[in-house]
């Protein structure tokens, strides 16, 4: 349905010869649109549309169109089929009263829809005939603004305010430079100092564990201290300050004052 050629299709056009109409089918916005144009072409009061003759005309148009172009849009064919049914009901009502009523109600419903569409089309034409802003009448090309925006005030809402406080507190406690985690791991230097201090007072072979600092609460701290002390003891044993001995694999490591220590203190 093109919108370009609505000008031709809109007003009270008299019904063109059917060949021409076939070519114009695309100019109608659906079957109802064509039906309305056919109805208007009856040049009778819209209240007294003859549905029967309308049906005949519509079917003729569709038939003509099909002869030229087989690929007619589905909604046209659906309408054609429905109108064929309607025609049969109106012409040869079945003995059963229901069918008669069916046909009459359907015809009335169709007439109502056509009247409604006719109203709408009249309104559209009425609107289009008015001076339209931007087409027939023009507004000020360069409106001026005398608005002044006062941004001096601030808006503080309780929600964001409270959230800001929470965020500040959270971040502050998380990454505050005033909260260094005390480094309680026993370093090799610590162990060297302690070993050197204590080596002199060693009576005999003593297990390495004896040289660990007191108050090693966590297993991590204890393991770190043990590793550092082992390293320190190896270093001191290399210099001869102490002797190390391990009787069996994974057995306790024993420490004794070395000859170098004795020499130095002698």
């Amino acid at each position: 349905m093109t919108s370009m050629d609505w000008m031709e299709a809109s007003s009270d056009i008299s019904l063109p010869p059917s060949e021409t109409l076939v070519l114009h089918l695309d100019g109608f916005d659906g079957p109802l649109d064509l039906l309305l144009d056919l109805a208007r072409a009856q040049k009778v009061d819209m209240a007294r549309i003859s549905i029967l003759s309308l049906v005949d005309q519509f079917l003729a148009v569709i038939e003509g169109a099909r002869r030229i172009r087989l690929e007619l849009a589905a909604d046209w064919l659906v309408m054609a089929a429905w109108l064929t049914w309607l025609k049969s009901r109106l012409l040869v009502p079945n003995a059963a009263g229901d069918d008669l009523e069916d046909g009459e109600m359907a015809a009335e419903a169709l007439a109502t829809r056509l009247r409604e569409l006719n109203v709408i089309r009249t309104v559209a034409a009425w609107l289009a005939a008015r001076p339209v802003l931007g087409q027939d009448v023009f507004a000020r090309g360069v409106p001026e603004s005398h608005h002044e925006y006062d941004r001096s005030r601030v808006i503080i809402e309780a929600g964001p305010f409270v959230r800001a406080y929470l965020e500040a507190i959270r971040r502050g406690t998380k990454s505050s430079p005033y909260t260094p985690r005390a480094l309680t791991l026993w370093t090799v230097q610590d162990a060297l100092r302690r070993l050197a201090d204590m080596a002199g007072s060693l009576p005999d072979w003593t297990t390495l564990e004896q040289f660990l600092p007191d108050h090693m609460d966590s297993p991590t701290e204890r393991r770190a201290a043990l590793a550092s002390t082992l390293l320190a003891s190896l270093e001191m044993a290399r210099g001869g300050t102490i002797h190390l001995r391990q009787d069996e694999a994974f057995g306790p490591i024993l420490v004794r004052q070395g000859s170098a220590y004795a020499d130095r203190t002698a």
Partner: protein
Amino acid sequence: MSENLDPVSPKPKREPDEDSLRLAEALVFASAEPVTPHGLARVLAVDLDAGSVLAALRARYAGRGVELVDAGNGVMFRSAPDLAPRLRKVIESPRRLPRVAMETLSIVAYHQPVTRPEIEHIRGTALSQQTLDSLLELDLIAPKGRRESPGRPTLWGTTPAFLAHFGLKDIRELPRREDLLLGMAPPRLIPEILPADLQAPPDAV
């Protein structure tokens, strides 16, 4: 405007003077939107009636190249319609709305608030996205909530820009259905075909 005043003791208003006419002229000229009497009253001295000032201004511009016209519940300046052919030569104007868009707009104006399926039902054909988009883009229609029915379809209605676009003061200025249907049998309500709300008169807006 009288709203500004104590209703019990309405002070007599002065006749519009030259100063108030200048002010009203400048305000309406500057504004991109229609200016309401209330908006004018805000800048006028309290002992002046905005309505009278606008009436005097309208009289002053009668017959000129620019006229004061009603739009929505306010007024705006517009070029005189008779100059359109000559102005169009130099002022770029957007393309006219195609018939589909005009009909869709008319349906929305008459049946608002209305859903897209209802519009399609009345026109007997599908409503293209393009048509809807162009009406939305021109700010002629706007969503007006949703219908509380299955699928909750969007309801459409016309905008203040719609009124300004067609120089209408009020949606009620549209031709009455009764006048359009003159000579026709009053449409029998057929609920199976048309939803009841489609039958609502336009002044139900």
